[in-house]
């Protein structure tokens, strides 16, 4: 069930990228999609247990797998910095293309 929700999020984001006309909306859709991917990593990490894997004496049950979580942390940071870069690019483009519609920008800027 959760897995289906996660995939629905990824697909929603992907279709948003295709069907939204505005560049900012496309970037937000991409963010939705990457949220879905991150959630999927967390879901996979919690296959065997839910507890945070911290070394201690008390036995609290099954631990979550730390590897996917550690990996997705890197991906979150990268995704965040790419988004920041894109938004700066959009700001620059917005001066000459105030509507920020991709079809318009593309028409103005392809030879």
């Amino acid at each position, binding site marked *: 069930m959760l897995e289906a929700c996660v995939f629905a999020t*990824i697909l929603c984001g*992907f279709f948003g*990228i*295709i069907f939204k006309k505005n560049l900012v909306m*496309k*970037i937000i859709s*991409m963010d939705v*999609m*990457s949220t879905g*991917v991150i959630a*999927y*990593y967390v879901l*996979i990490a919690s*296959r065997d247990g839910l507890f945070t894997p911290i070394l201690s004496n008390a036995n609290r049950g099954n631990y979550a797998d730390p*590897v*996917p979580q*550690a*990996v997705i942390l*890197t*991906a979150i940071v*990268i*995704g965040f*910095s*790419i988004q920041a*870069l*894109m938004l700066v*690019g*959009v700001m*620059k*483009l917005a001066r*000459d*293309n105030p509507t920020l519609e*991709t*079809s318009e*920008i*593309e028409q*103005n*800027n*392809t*030879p």
Partner: protein
Amino acid sequence: MSTLTIIWIALPFFVGFISYLLPRFDRIFSLGVAIASTGYALWLYTQPPLKLQLLDNFGVTLLLDPLSGFFILTNGLVTAAVILYCWNSGKTAFFYMQTIILNGSVNAAFACTDFISLYVALEVISIAAFLLIAYPRTDRAIWVSLRYLFTSNVAMLFYLVGAVLVYKASHSFAFAGLRESPPEALALIFLGLLVKGGIFVSGLWLPLTHSESETPVSAMLSGAVVKAGVLPLVRCALLVPEVDPLIRGLGVGTALLGVGYAVFEKDTKRMLAFHTVSQLGFILAAPEVGGFYALTHGLVKSALFLIAGVLPSRNLKELQHQPIHTPIWIALVIASFSISGFPLLSGFGAKVLTMKSLLPWQVIGMNTAALGTAISFAKLIFLPHQKQEKQGKIQPGFWAAIALLIGGLFLANIAYYEAYSFENIIKPLATIALGWLAYFLIFRQTTVKLPRLLEQFDHLIGVMSLMLILLFWMVLA
């Protein structure tokens, strides 16, 4: 040896940031790193393959063998040539810093053998390439780079889902885990790599990006950066025999698609970009010998892009009425001969080697692609030329860069001297003759203009979903 490898991986990033702090030495620093990386690649050939596992069980794994040596060598030489080309062009420290970081991240992508290190390397490549393409700060440059970053980032999201599926199946992110993973993991990961490497229809972002960038940036992108997506595919094909036919098939498809667009193209830089697509197909068509082909292609394509930057016009129709300076024309002809597979240049050895390793069902497709290459480079070879008294504006570093790249082509040719047998020499000559004949009879007059519909931004993203379905179906079959 492992210490040296770690220093080699870290050096470009370290020096990149240092050179931003000491902008006076930016060029020397970045050239030094490129030369060091080239030296390291040459040294790799004298060593047995090195496998490194850093940071415990789930950490970074690196593999350095002669195959990655070819790719690293390409990257080092192309970077050195680009820096020489830019030597007196007044580029800021920022440009050199990004160049050297791009060089470092491409090297990292060549060395690693697990999906997460590869992901990080590919994303750093995206960011550095974005900044380099957007360097002129014009609206067009920003749009082209934004389009590049967006496309590759969406592809990498699919790739990430594939990577976690591999982890789920085999409890490791290593390439070898692909064998036990479900077909959807394979399809998702390959989608990411195909888009990143500019292969088949998912690589149609490449022509616009490479042709609209500045000259040195397109040389760097076409010569080295796209190969960061190709080497992992080659490695997967060698590691997991089940995917080998899939990769070979995609190679043939890519070679034909790129050539098909290129023969009708009337713009020099776009033609070269389409040829990058087609040559990547040659690398994938015979994965076990792809390294040598990648080296040859990297050298020749960056030389061609640098030369195209100093031609008086980009339009081939205009160039036919505007004679080019003879020395430039000679360099252009040498490079075009190499890529068409003419003996004495390393393009010949690479083509012979690739053609020898093809499977029977690939032969027709690849020979057609080779013929197409000869046809479209006839367009450049038969341009008018004359000795000009008044030199146009040529970058001072231009000749140094060209000498490095074309010298590399001659030297790499010696490395594989076994290719010189009678029938091996006859075949490429016949292909080239046939290509030139076809050019004069048919293609010189044609004015067909292929539609650019598939290169539109929305279609690039849409094609990804189609490609995913195609890959899934191919993996299942």
